[in-house]
């Protein structure tokens, strides 16, 4: 514990020093105040590349805001990033959330994973610290009633309704079979797709289940085959989606395969090989090059940090949305600028950001992709209705 608080103290000291290292060395004397912004993502482990990407996105925004100068109600502020590692682990997430609160951050950008974001959101709420997640999509994040929880990415309900509509209206699938892996993510998404399919006039002919450890789907696929669906939707991740599509081919099934962001990965194509051809899957948001500020963001980001992994533009926008609310409130006091967050109306890199009453973005985009010639290619981008 002492080691941690010592490190924390050192980090603050460094942050203060670095903030003071600008053209005005004496922070106190020049009247500049340091404002701590927290950022949490997995910085170690298998998702470390994604976590670092979020951190860099947030840092880029902070550097730009500092360079332009931030004045709130006549007072000058310098932003300092406090980046923490939650290792994509729910328990670690709550520990680092408490740490950030204790250090007095004005707001938090994060976390990356839904599973880590949801438990941490209670701590931020209890302490009145606004939180904007760049990438957590689980519905439960904003339905817990925590007024401090916001996100700048389309949630699973929005993605699910787009997927269901797309399957029935665009792909002409009247008979849809739905499989999910019984995780919070897969099940939540599959339920939304089922609702949307029915709403769009399609029929859910089969609802089957598997687990996030399974590799054998022959039995459920055979059962599904007997109901002759036009399309199979799978709510789950690529390690299941790849053998599933292979087994569909083995069984001589001709139904289309549709997945979501857990499937829309390069790993899916690697694992499924030639059988991946023709598979469809969605991902929240726009492809980077189609984002309003995508090209400019890519140039700025890559000059500093190298290749963009995934969510960096969202982390970048999240910082701007937070600072935008501070500007309108004329204060960095969480209690004051939190009241301004619901009124957000901000044009960012990823699109136009407005929040609904729950803290979800309104009219978020969902993009559909298809595997063609061994690569994910954009099919179209749909604006979600809610």
């Amino acid at each position, binding site marked *: 514990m002492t080691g941690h608080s010592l490190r924390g103290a050192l980090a603050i000291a460094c942050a203060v020093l670095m903030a003071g290292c600008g053209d005005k060395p004496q922070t106190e004397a020049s009247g500049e105040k340091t404002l701590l912004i927290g950022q949490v993502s997995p910085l170690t482990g*298998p998702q470390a590349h994604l976590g670092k990407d979020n951190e860099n996105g947030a840092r880029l925004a902070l550097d730009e805001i500092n360079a332009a100068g931030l004045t709130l109600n006549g007072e000058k502020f310098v932003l300092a990033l406090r980046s923490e590692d939650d290792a994509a682990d729910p328990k670690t997430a709550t520990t680092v959330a408490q740490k950030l609160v204790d250090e007095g951050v004005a707001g938090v950008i994060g976390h990356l994973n839904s599973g880590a974001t949801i438990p941490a959101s209670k701590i931020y709420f209890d302490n009145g610290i606004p939180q904007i997640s760049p990438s957590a999509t689980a519905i439960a994040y904003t339905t817990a009633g925590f007024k401090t929880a916001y996100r700048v990415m389309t949630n699973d309900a929005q993605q699910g309704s787009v997927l269901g509509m797309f399957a029935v209206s665009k792909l002409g699938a009247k008979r849809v079979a739905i499989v999910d892996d*019984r995780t919070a993510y897969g099940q939540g998404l599959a339920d939304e797709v089922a609702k949307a399919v029915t709403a769009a006039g399609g029929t859910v002919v*089969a*609802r*089957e*289940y*598997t*687990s996030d*450890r399974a*590799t*054998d789907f*022959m*039995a*459920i696929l*055979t*059962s599904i*085959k*007997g109901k002759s669906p036009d399309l199979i939707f799978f709510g789950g991740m*690529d*390690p299941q989606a*790849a*053998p599933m599509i*292979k087994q569909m081919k*083995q*069984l*001589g099934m001709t139904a289309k395969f549709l997945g979501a962001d857990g499937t829309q990965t390069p*790993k899916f194509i*690697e*694992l*499924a*090989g*030639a059988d991946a051809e023709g598979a469809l899957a969605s991902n929240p948001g726009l492809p980077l090059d189609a984002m309003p500020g995508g090209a400019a963001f890519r140039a700025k980001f890559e000059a500093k940090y190298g290749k963009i992994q995934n969510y960096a533009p969202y982390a970048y926008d999240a910082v701007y949305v937070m600072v935008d609310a501070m500007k309108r409130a004329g204060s960095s006091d969480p209690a004051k600028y939190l009241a301004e967050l619901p009124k957000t109306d901000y044009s960012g890199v990823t699109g136009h950001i407005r929040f609904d009453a729950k803290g979800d973005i309104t009219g978020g985009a969902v993009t559909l992709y298809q595997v063609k010639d061994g690569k994910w290619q954009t099919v179209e981008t749909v604006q979600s209705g809610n």
Partner: protein
Amino acid sequence: MDIFLQQLINGLVLGSVYALVALGYTMVYGIIELINFAHGEVTMMGALVALSVIGALALGMPGLPGVLILAAGLALAIPVCVALGLLIERVAYRPLRNAPRLAPLITAIGVSIVLQNLAMLIWGKQYISFPPVLPQGRYEILGAHITDVQIAILVLTVLIMLGLILMVQRTRLGRAMRATAQSRQVASLMGVDVNRVIASTFAIGSALAAVAGVMVSAYYGLAHYYMGFMLGLKAFSAAVLGGIGNLGGAMLGGLLLGLIESFGAGYIGDLTGGFLGSHYQDVFAFFVLIAVLVFRPSGLLGARGIERA
């Protein structure tokens, strides 16, 4: 009808894989009454070693026929698994052979954790794909489909099974194994080198695990460090269902478990009007297992007899 036939094929193929892994559990249990929980991990190691060879060859020598590449993978995986099996026996089980039965069970679990982590260090946490080197032929029988790989799994399992029974019944080593199973002390008094016999049992079981590992990864197209856990658990259940310690029982238990899972997952939803879905397939399978054990505690073919290996 075509759906029924398809589920039958699915169940038989899945059951064959279970049976092959179950043989390893049952052989070791038959001879020293130890449940070798690390056996599933040996299967995983076999799959990953073979996959590394197959992946390298598929990239390095793309002209090579698929069956040859597969054989090369097996040719390395089998010795590696045999060596691993011998090492596990020597290090983790032999020193505890006269200890209470719980002690080697715990080292078995320990070995399995060590192997999982070792595999994670060597191959990483990623799923590794099986390169598309094998023939992708697919045949239609009365509306049901069967692939080359599925046929190979069925045929190979039956051949291995017959070979194993012949070995146990007809060879000197087999006789020594049966003698050791009946009484270690008496066998050793009769001049049987008990340590060598037990080591041979581990070697044969591990070789089978290597074959099963390669089959599983070829069938599903992927392998990863955690794959041995669930496979081991299912195969162990199959061995218990058939009567642990009995070779024919492992085969029967494996096939039955495969069929029960397949038909369970396929029909449970329709039969209960959607009240119970296919996520109850494991519940269903283990329910059958419990029911069998209540009425026949030693498993279906579990009577102690001369067939025990």
